[in-house]
């Protein structure tokens, strides 16, 4: 049986991957996106509903990039929605409720709205001009759903005349209100035992995936090493399986009395040594430990338990690290051991974390893109991922060269075009005006490199295929013959570049985890916590950073306690009471009891403070006058003793106690509970994608987000001193001005002396 199961499982995984790959680049313009780069299109609140509750309702707008209503035009129009479903999810029932409005010009007998699931037509709704607005409920049979992405199609066939009809007449339209149309689902428990191959499915970003997980460690200082080093790996491993969707990580300690009873979430993760586990698990549940090991078991009632253990603390850490790399599809067992290689501490492989480097060429294939073909008339979009290193920096005039291989078939009509965009900036257009079709090899497009930002980018190819209009309105073409293909043999070439970046920059942090995540995947820094009850939020944040970095971050540690001073590259989570004024830079926002705010920020925060005692802070009063020039004039800074209320704040600045280019990032709230809730809000794509500047303050549910740049920028870089110099001067043109003034002064003096001497010479001769 096992002989049969293994190839079947591999084939199923392979099939899923293929489907995902095919679905990922080719999708209709309004379809839900399926890659991490498009995560921002999925509202966080909706994912909550999708993934946590066994029963729930999701509006269709959750799967659409366009927030407005869906308008289906012309004689035949359709829209696809790609709905992810965890492979471990057991659907009992799914009902689609559609609210629509159709044109009153339609012929009722010839106009229908069809609903298809994975290409099977499940319903046809008659579009009746006598009842132009309607609501329909369609059951989408559970057995037709499959793990991974499911394609839900809304298609209209609509006519206003029996013959001689203009297929693109304006009367031909039907509108679906996506915010009022929804999917109602009912999930049941998995009927079979889970295996480690289900781990990815358990934390799938789709329906049935877990948005929350509780990590448990033994109580006491003996487990500090595990908490410090193993838990970040665990959090990252699970968050990476969530792909682009957020994962809230909770942390609890167990005691000799047993595991906590009120652990939320369907999956709990136990991290500890065998002897610690033995204290809380029945003997039959204890794995036989022969090295770094991970075990996934059912605990009944649809709950699962992941045990990460090893014979020593180092082996437990190695097991956690192994989880970040493990290929679920190739691990069909419930238990896996990671034999340690000699040395064992080598850096993690990049694991698909491709970041394009300067001066190199990449085939689209190497970037994860597969040849995409679109057929039929209408608007389509092809997305090519262009991942950039977080510290990619080059001259602003440098050009990226695209050599595209694409073709289009014969019979395209007027209005058929290709538009090429980089992150929504139009860079090129091409009219597909050869009626016999055309094929292009190395079609050259150049665009400024500064259109690419750190982290994820996308080349968006908008395709509009239209059939030719010929022979009058009665001889229309349905355009089924139309075809456009973009090949994965296309090549992108980046200009030579160095590694340099301007900090602090929360946008760069959100896009890549930089600087806590280096371009090589190594962690560069430590997460410090004000108290142990902040381990959960810290792990949540760590997981989000791994998602941003598109791979595990090796070596990131979570340390409980705030050393004084907070040296090095540090990320701090603490309550305001745990922070000291001295921890903050002289010209940075202070989140300690005595807060320092830029005046602008204060205006937005005033309502959240309790009993503020405002005083205008001066430069000398704040710091004793040591430091660098402020970004804001001193009179624009306020000191106050106040709370943050239910808000949290995230600020980054050059670490005053650090050396060189170290960055200190602080996330603070009034209480650990509020901090945990706000971090949970923060990792949602709605908020995470809006981070910018060096100060962010937000409230419950991500409301009232305020972002500002308040402290001085500084530059970090390596490899190319000239580029670093360019970056430094660009951010601090005053340096250049000082140099220019000095050189001009010296030159003036020398010239003046020379001229004076010559003039004296003249006078003498005269």
């Amino acid at each position: 049986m096992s002989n049969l199961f293994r190839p079947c499982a591999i084939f199923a995984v392979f099939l899923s991957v293929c489907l995902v790959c095919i679905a990922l680049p080719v999708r209709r313009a309004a379809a839900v996106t399926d890659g991490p780069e498009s995560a921002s299109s999925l509202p966080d609140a909706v994912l909550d509903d999708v993934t946590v509750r066994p029963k729930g309702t999701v509006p269709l707008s959750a799967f659409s990039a366009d927030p407005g209503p869906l308008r289906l035009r012309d004689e035949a129009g359709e829209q696809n929605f790609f709905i992810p479903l965890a492979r471990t999810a057991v659907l009992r029932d799914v009902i689609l409720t559609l609210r629509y409005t159709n044109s009153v010009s339609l012929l009722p007998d010839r106009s229908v709205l069809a609903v298809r699931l994975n290409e099977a037509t499940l319903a046809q709704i008659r579009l009746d001009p006598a009842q132009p607005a309607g609501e329909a409920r369609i059951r989408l049979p559970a057995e037709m759903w499959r793990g991974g992405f499911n394609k839900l199609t809304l298609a209209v066939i609509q006519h206003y005349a029996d013959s001689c009809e203009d297929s693109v007449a304006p009367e031909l339209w039907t509108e679906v209100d996506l915010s009022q149309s929804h999917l109602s689902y009912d999930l049941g428990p998995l009927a079979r035992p889970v295996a480690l191959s289900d781990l990815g499915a358990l934390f799938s970003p789709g329906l049935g995936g877990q948005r929350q997980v509780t990590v448990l460690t033994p109580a006491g200082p003996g487990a500090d090493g595990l908490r410090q080093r193993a838990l970040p790996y665990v959090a990252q491993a699970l968050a990476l399986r969530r792909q682009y969707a957020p994962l809230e990580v909770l942390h609890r300690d167990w005691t000799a009395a047993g595991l906590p009873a009120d652990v939320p979430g369907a999956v709990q993760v136990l991290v500890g040594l065998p002897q610690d586990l033995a204290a809380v698990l029945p003997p039959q549940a204890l794995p036989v430990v022969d090295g770094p090991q991970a075990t996934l078991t059912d605990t009944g009632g649809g709950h699962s338990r992941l045990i990460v253990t090893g014979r020593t603390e180092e082996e437990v850490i190695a097991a956690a690290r192994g989880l970040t790399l493990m290929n679920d599809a190739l691990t069909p067992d419930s238990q896996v051991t990671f034999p340690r290689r000699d040395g064992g501490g080598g850096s993690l492989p990049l694991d698909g974390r491709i970041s394009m480097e300067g001066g190199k060429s990449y085939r689209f294939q190497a970037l994860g893109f597969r040849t995409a073909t679109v057929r039929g008339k209408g608007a389509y979009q092809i997305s090519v991922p262009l991942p950039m290193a977080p510290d990619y920096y080059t001259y602003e005039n440098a050009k990226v060269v695209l050599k595209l291989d694409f073709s289009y078939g014969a019979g395209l009509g007027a209005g058929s075009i290709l538009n090429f965009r980089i992150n929504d900036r139009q860079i090129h257009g091409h009219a597909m005006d050869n009626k016999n079709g055309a094929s292009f090899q190395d079609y050259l497009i150049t665009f400024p490199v500064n259109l690419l930002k750190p982290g994820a980018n996308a080349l968006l190819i908008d395709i509009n295929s239209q059939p030719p209009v010929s022979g009058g309105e009665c001889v229309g073409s349905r355009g089924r013959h139309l075809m456009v293909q973009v090949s994965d043999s296309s090549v992108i070439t980046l200009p030579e570049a160095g590694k340099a970046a301007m900090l602090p920059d929360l946008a760069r942090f959100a896009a890549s985890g930089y600087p806590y995540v280096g371009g090589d995947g190594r962690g560069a820094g430590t997460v410090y916590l004000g108290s142990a009850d902040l381990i959960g939020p810290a792990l949540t944040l760590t997981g989000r950073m791994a998602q941003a970095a598109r791979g595990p971050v090796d070596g990131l540690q979570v340390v409980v306690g705030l050393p004084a001073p907070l040296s090095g590259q540090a990320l701090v989570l603490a309550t305001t009471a745990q922070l000291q004024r001295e921890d903050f830079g002289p010209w940075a926002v202070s989140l300690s009891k005595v807060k320092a705010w830029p005046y602008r920020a204060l205006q937005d925060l005033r309502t959240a403070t309790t009993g503020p005692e405002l005083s205008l802070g001066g430069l000398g009063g704040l710091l004793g006058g040591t430091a660098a020039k402020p970004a804001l004039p001193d009179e624009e800074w306020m000191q106050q003793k106040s709370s943050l209320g239910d808000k949290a704040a995230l600020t980054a600045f050059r670490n005053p106690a650090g050396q060189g280019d170290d960055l200190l990032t602080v996330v603070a709230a009034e209480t650990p509970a509020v901090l945990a809730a706000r971090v949970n809000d923060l990792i949602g794509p709605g908020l995470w994608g809006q981070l910018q500047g060096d100060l962010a303050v937000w409230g419950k549910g991500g409301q009232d987000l305020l972002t500002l740049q308040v402290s001085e920028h500084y530059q970090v870089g390596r490899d190319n001193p000239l580029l670093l110099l360019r970056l430094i001067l660009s951010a601090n043109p005053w340096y250049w001005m000082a140099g220019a003034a000095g050189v001009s002064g010296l030159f003036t003096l020398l010239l003046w002396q020379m001229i004076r001497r010559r003039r004296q010479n003249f006078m003498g001769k005269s």
Partner: protein
Amino acid sequence: MTVQTRLSAAEASLPDASSPDLSDGQKPAAPSALSRVWSWLGWGLALPGLAGVVLVPMDWSGQMMAMIAVIAALWVLRTLPNDEPGSPLRLLVLLLTAIVSLRYIAWRGLFTLNSSTLISTALAVILYLAEVYSVVISLLGALVNSTPLRRPSLMLADLPPETALPTVDVLIPTYNEPAEMLEVTLRAALQIQYPADLLRVYLLDDGGTDAKIAQVDPENAAAAQARRTTLQALCHRLGARYLTRAENSHAKAGNINSALAHTDGDLIVILDADHVPTGDFLNRTVPWMVKRPDVFLVQTPHFMINPDPIDRNLLQSFRRMPSENDMFYQTIQKGLDFWDSSFFCGSAAVLRRAPLMAIGGLAGQTITEDAETAITLHGQGLKSVYLDRPMVAGLNPETFTAFVIQRMRWAQGMTQILLLKRPFMAPGLSWFQRVGYMSSLLFWLFPFARMIFIFSPLAYLIGGFDVYNASTMQILAYTVPHVLAGYIMSDMLFGRTRWPLISEIYELMQSIFSLNALIKVVANPRHPSFVVTPKGDTMAEEFISPLAKPFYGLFVLVGIGFIFGGWRLWDDPVTRDMTMVVLVWNTLNFLTLTAALGALVERRQRRASPRMPAQQTGTVLTGAGVSCDIDDLSAGGARLLIDPSAPQIPRKGDLIRLAAPAPQAGRTVMLSCEVCSVFPLRRRLALGVRFVPATEAEANDAVVLAFGDSARWQFFLDRRVRPIAFTTALSMIFGLIWQPVLLHARMLRAAIRLPSCLQTRQGSTHE
């Protein structure tokens, strides 16, 4: 305040020979060794520092911040007093502007030449080279003109009493100029205040050579014979000496060299046929030759008493605006003089015979023998002196055709010198003389750059070649500051003598024709031949210059550029920003071209001898005598303003006598005049009178009165040489550019109705 008083005041403010600073023979102390070490150390720091400041890269945002600060600083600095030549403030402004421009050029060269196709790259490089040329010219100009030298006034009376004055030969070469013109020049030359036994005036006639008289065409031969006879008689009558030669070889230089063999004066004064000297010409120039034996040349300005055709046809502000050559004679030559590289301009100069003879007379390898000769003599360690006082009044070419002929000759000649004499490596020249000459010579290559600046936007708009690879923000951060810095630099150096935007019109109008001439001379540097500039023409009717066709072509082409630009704006949203920028560029070209069209309508000019404004008094001797103001004056007549209530007002046709003081001559002259017109003017009564001299002495007095006083020319120059704001210049240009369109439309309409109205004229071209 009278002219004389003003002049006296002006002269009083100048340092003079008796100033303690100018004591003879006192050489300044040489810099000490320590001072030299410090100086070398300073240069050793400053040059790499300058390279760093120019080359260090910045993103556009940082660059923009830096440039805003620098331009703001320049704006403030330029408002501070900086007229003192060589003052630290002036040098600082020039340096900062140079840094801005060099940064621009470095950025263009390093980051903006990566166009998408080979042709685009080639065009981008060509445009870049034109920009490099412009910046090099600006920087050379800045260095040359950083310290314009104003020589102190030195008179014969300042020389020790026992000083033996040199003999002077005044040589007036002529080819085809009319006898009337030559008579005025000869009379003025003979009236120069200098011991009569030491002064000889020669007319060097190349129109009556033996070869001309012996030519095959009997009509031309007879004309040449008649000319010789006439001029011989004229010289005899006036007391001058007539010289001619066997053949017309080597044009003007050959003519003068031929005369040098027949004369023996210690000093040579060369005057063009239309260049009328003032009485004090030798009084102010010879002392420099006497005091400075190492000086081979004393050059003075060419003061033009009529507007050039662009000024007359378009600007019409001869009396209010500095003329085109004011920039050269009032600023550049003074700058060159500081660096020992002011050069001979062919006329209005005193040359020392000995060094001239030592090199075989005037050089004749190029068609600008004057500058070529100066380079040769500078290379022998001799010095030149430039005196900034107008003491020779000449004529500008009257027609645009003649103007172009003149400028093509200059452009070709200077390029010949650049190619044949190679001053950048010529032996004997100091580094600053090389800089000075390179500045003067390279300037004449401007047609290449100007045409590239015209065609580059068209290459983008019409051809779609991306010749300028930069974003809008980069243009704002790099290009705009460079343009502003260029304006500030130009305003500081030439603000008084060249108004903004005027150069663009002049250069554009010459470029079309000079470019072809330059290409020819580059292809064959020894090919060009001397072409005499036609002067003294009169025009009875307005007409469109026969050289207008290329401008029409360019005008249409630039207009087509707008059409393509509009299409690109609509069709290609990706390049919309760049298209907008290029359209602005094309618009500036269009405005300049439109203004140029105005200069192509040749305005009517009736007087061959233009009248210059005068501000002096006189007396009309009719019975009791009526005092009058002389409003304008020429050798042939004057306009007198009298009180309408005066008794015995002359009537048209009356013969009167005019008594007027001639300050330079130190006496009052009496002239017989015929009243040609009487009309009210500015609440006075204007009498248009024509001089009808009864005697030779009276004819001499007319010339003395009209041309004898250099203070009058100086006053005229001082009045019009002044700076104006850029916005004023812009509004002036905007006010002018509409006229050409109307004028051309009117004249073309007239031409269609009556083809003969569309006269064409050709300038006199003679080998």
